[in-house]
């Protein structure tokens, strides 16, 4: 049963890649746009650290690490679960109807059922940024890989949780994209910026601290408590997000989302 689901997931991913291959031109332009986009943003931090060499103990290599983790997660999400990013739009268009009549998990269909995936070029870009930062800081490669996985799981879960708000709010797609993007931005802010209630926020309702701040402690201070905290938080965040999605799905099934449609 699990084997069949896994095989189906692989088949979906293959279909996605095939669709991307038929749209080669669009794929390449989009990738170039995305990387330009990230480069412009990264240059901003170079400018900021040019004016102010150290902010709350963070220097340019900290930003590169945080940003590399984030960008890799973003790339992975776009590649292997693009549909989660467009969840609010899929809900609005009633696309979950078909998935609900099929035997495989709805979330799997949501994540992999839309084409337009980009991602591998962004993952490579993230990898390059991480390599540069890794060389600058001399962190363990194995740990860096593990942190990449954690950041990716946390970010994907956050996108799922906040995207699921689309079950309650119509036309949420635009807002959701804005929110995901801002998660990414907050996660790459120097940790010392956050204190008091803000610190509570980034560990609870908007747990972006687990995207970069905590991984950086694991990487740079070899802090095993931080690692333990990160691993359990990652699992918890993934579980809660899935719960929120399920809750939203039951609202979808109630039909009140759409009201009367004949």
């Amino acid at each position: 049963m699990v084997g069949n689901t896994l095989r189906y997931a692989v088949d979906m991913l293959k279909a996605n890649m095939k669709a991307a291959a038929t749209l080669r031109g669009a794929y390449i332009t989009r990738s170039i746009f995305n990387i330009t986009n990230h480069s412009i943003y990264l240059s901003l931090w170079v400018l900021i650290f040019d004016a102010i060499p150290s902010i709350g103990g963070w220097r340019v290599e900290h930003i590169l690490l945080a940003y590399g983790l984030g960008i890799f997660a973003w790339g992975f999400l776009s590649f292997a679960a693009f549909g989660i990013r467009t969840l609010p739009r899929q809900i609005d268009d009633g696309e979950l109807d078909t998935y609900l009549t099929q035997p495989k998990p709805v979330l799997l269909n949501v994540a992999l059922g839309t084409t337009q995936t980009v991602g591998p070029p962004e993952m490579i870009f993230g990898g390059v940024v991480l390599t540069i930062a890794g060389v600058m800081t001399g962190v363990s490669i194995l740990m860096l890989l593990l942190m990449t996985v954690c950041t990716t799981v946390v970010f994907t879960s956050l996108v799922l949780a906040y995207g699921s708000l689309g079950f309650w709010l119509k036309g949420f797609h635009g807002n959701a994209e804005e929110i995901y993007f801002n998660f990414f931005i907050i996660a790459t802010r120097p940790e010392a910026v956050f204190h008091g209630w803000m610190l509570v926020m980034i560990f609870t309702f908007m747990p972006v601290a687990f995207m970069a701040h905590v991984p950086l402690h694991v990487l740079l201070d070899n802090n095993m408590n931080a690692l333990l905290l990160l691993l359990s938080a990652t699992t918890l965040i993934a579980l809660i997000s899935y719960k929120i999605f399920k809750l939203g799905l039951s609202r979808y099934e109630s039909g009140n989302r759409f009201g009367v449609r004949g």
Partner: protein
Amino acid sequence: MLDGFRKYYIFARTAFRDHTSHRMKLSIRVVLCLFFMFVFVEFWRLIGREEIVTLPYAIIDICWYASLTQMFLFMSPRMFMTIENDVRSGDIAYALIRPMPYIWMRLSEAIGAMTGNTVIYYTVGIAALYLYIGGLPTSGLSGLLSAMFFLYLASITHIFYQLMCGVTALWLQDGESIYRIYQKTLIVLGGLYMPITLYPDWVQTLAYATPVSSMMFAPAQFVLGASSPLSFMTVTLITTFWLGLSGLATLLLFRICTRRLEINGG
């Protein structure tokens, strides 16, 4: 003539109402915006506390500056999406044969929705900032009001660029990617994170040459106190200049792209 304007006014008013009726969506966005503004405030307070560099501005002023520029980004509706969707679904073909120009219709709607946002952000947002930052900027109420006034005008320029990004979807099928590049340029050269006066000279020169600095830095620098580099007169001039030029560019681009549409037959 008056009748013509009335039509657009009605579109704007409808968009205003429609926009303000989505209360959950609006509230979430306001809360997010407040959160991000407060993060900015803390960011600059941290830099102020650390005293690693001496900034030419009072920390309280930079806090206001960074918050207002962030607010600016939240005030505009994402109009490029609407247009891109019109293009993707093919609805634009029907919209084009309506008696009123499509692009002006979308502009009126965007201004209506943006005005709805402005009312909320300029009351709730400014009040919250006043409390959180703990006072007015050193340039006082007049500095703050000038910044708010020009940010509103600049939002219209911002809408023009959004319209342009959306219209390019007729051409490249992908308005969003273009928008994101424009947005990043706006963030960097417009001076979202810090006043562009703190950038290296060559970047400053580059920023001044682009319209994006007139949209965020120029209006928001009124809260930077006595040392704000641009006068009221200068900002009035560059704002009007770029508003007019961007409007013209939008019209031109729209004409070119729709001509392509007619040739390609949709």
